[in-house]
C-alpha cells in the first residue's frame, strides 16, 4: 500500500531515528519529499511510503506512540474547486503532476497523492484558490 502524509513530531521525539525504525521494524519503503526542523526542534517530514497494509498500520501506531501527528496530504493542500475557472495556470508550475488538466473536458484535476508540497501553485493561481500549509 502506498500513501503520502506529513509526520509532525515534538522536540522530545526529534532525537529518535523514526525513519530508521519505520524501515527496519515495519518494512516501510520510505521516500522523503520534504523535511524541516524548527529552531525549537519541532520537525515535519513529508514522506511517501509503501508497506504491507498491516505493517503500515503498526508503523503508524508506533509513530503515534511517540507523540507524532500524522497529517494526510489532502488536509495540507486544498483547491477551492467550486470557484475554479480551469484556466490551467497552476498546472504550469506543478512538475509533480498533482495538478493537471483533463485533456478531454479541460477540467482541473487535483491528485493530492502526487503532491510534494512545493507550494509553487499557491501564487500561480490567478484566483488565489489554492491553500497549502506544510503543517
Amino acid at each position: 500500500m502506498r500513501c503520502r502524509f506529513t509526520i509532525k513530531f515534538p522536540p522530545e521525539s526529534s532525537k529518535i531515528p523514526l525513519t530508521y525504525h519505520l524501515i527496519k521494524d515495519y518494512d516501510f519503503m520510505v521516500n522523503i519529499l520534504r523535511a524541516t526542523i524548527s529552531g525549537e526542534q519541532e520537525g515535519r517530514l513529508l514522506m511517501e511510503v509503501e508497506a504491507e497494509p498491516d505493517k503500515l498500520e503498526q508503523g503508524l501506531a508506533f509513530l503515534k506512540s511517540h507523540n507524532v501527528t500524522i497529517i494526510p496530504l489532502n488536509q495540507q493542500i486544498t483547491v477551492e474547486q467550486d470557484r475554479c475557472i480551469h484556466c490551467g495556470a497552476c498546472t504550469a508550475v506543478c512538475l509533480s503532476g498533482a495538478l493537471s488538466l483533463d485533456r478531454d473536458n479541460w477540467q482541473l484535476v487535483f491528485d493530492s497523492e502526487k503532491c510534494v508540497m512545493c507550494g509553487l501553485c499557491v501564487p500561480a493561481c490567478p484566483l488565489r484558490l489554492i491553500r497549502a500549509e506544510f503543517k
Partner: protein
Amino acid sequence: MAIRKSYEEINAKIRAGQAVVVTAEEIIPMVAEQGAEKVAQTVDVVTTATFGPMCSSGVFLNFGHSDPPIRMKKVWLNGVSAYAGLAAVDAYLGATEEAEDREPGQTYGGAHVIQELLEGRSVHLEAVGSGTDCYPLREWESDITLAEINEAILFNPRNAYQNYAAAVNSSAETLYTYMGVLLPNLANVTYSTSGALSPLLNDPEYRTIGLGTRIFLGGAVGYVAGHGTQHNSARERLPNGVPLGGAATLSVTGNLKEMSPDYIQAAVYEKYGVSLFVGIGVPMPVLDADMVRCLAVSDADIYTGLVDYGVPRRARPVLAKVSYAELKSGQINLNGRRIPTAPLSSMRKARQIAARLGEWVRSGQFLLQEPAERLPLGKSLTSLNVKEGC
C-alpha cells in the same frame, strides 16, 4: 452549384427557430467527413469563444449626481483610482489599476471592483472636486451598487487576440509574468488562446468580423466596437491565412449590468498585477464553402512562436514554431527535449460560452449582425523609440 447564403437568409432561419448551429470544434470532423460544400449547405452558424485574461479591459461608469452636485476630478472605488477626466460624474475604471493601500499579498484592482459590482455587492465610492459655481461640492463618499448607478458600460480597448505567442524562459531565474509563472531553464511553456475555438482564428481575414458585429460578452449581448489597440493584421501568415503570432485584436463593448460573474472574473498574476478574464463568443455566419474551410481550422493548422521571456527586450527571441495541437497535448518537443505546457485561458469556459451562444442563436433570440466596417487588413505596429535631441 456552390452554395451562398446571405446574412438575411441566415437570420430568417434563426427567427424561424430552424438555424443549424455548431461550435468551431464540432465543425472540424464534419468537414473532414462531408466536405466543405456539404457542410455549407447544412450548417448556418458556427460559434467560437474564448475565456482568457485580457488586461486591456475596463468600464465606463456614471454615478448619478449628488446634491449639491460635484464635478468629480478624482474618483476611487474601494480604493482603486478610476479616471475621472470626463464630465462631472463619469469615470473609467481600468481592470489593471491597483489599490495602493493593500497589504502585500492582498493585491486588489479594478478587475476586482468590476467583479464585486457584478456580484451585486456594495462598492465604496470616494470623489473629490475643486468646487465650481455649477458644481459646488468638493467631496463625496458613499456606497454604490451596480443597480443604483446610471450606467456601467464595459468598454475593452483590446481583447480576443488573434493568436498569441507561447512563453518560455531560458534564464536561470523564475519569471513572474502576465504569461504566468515561467520556470527557469526552459522548464515549462504557457500559452493563451483557445486555438481552434478562438474567434479570430476562425475568420483569419475578417470577412465577418468588425465594427457592429453582435457577440457574447461576459454573459450578455455585446458588440465589436472596431479593431482593438495594437491590431497587427500585417503579421506574417501561414498559407491557410492564420497569423503566426499575435495579430488582430478586438475592441468590444456591452452593458455590464446585463453581464454575469460566471463570464467575467478578476485575476492576479503574482508579481505582475491584476487582470480580468473576459468571456467572449463570436457567432460566424456560414456564407459559403470558403467560410467553412476557414471555420474547419484545427489545432494542428494553427502555429505560434515560442518566445523566450528570459530576454527582457521588446524583440524577444523566437525559439521555435509550435502548433496548438502540440501545445494542447501537454508537452512540446524543443530540440529533442520535452517541455510541459499549460494554458492560461480556460478551454472549459470557452466551450461553455460557445455552447451558450449556440443556444441563444437556436432559440431565435440572437441574430447575426453584418459589420458596418470590417477589421482592417495589412495594419502593422509602431514602437516607442528614443528620439535624438530630446
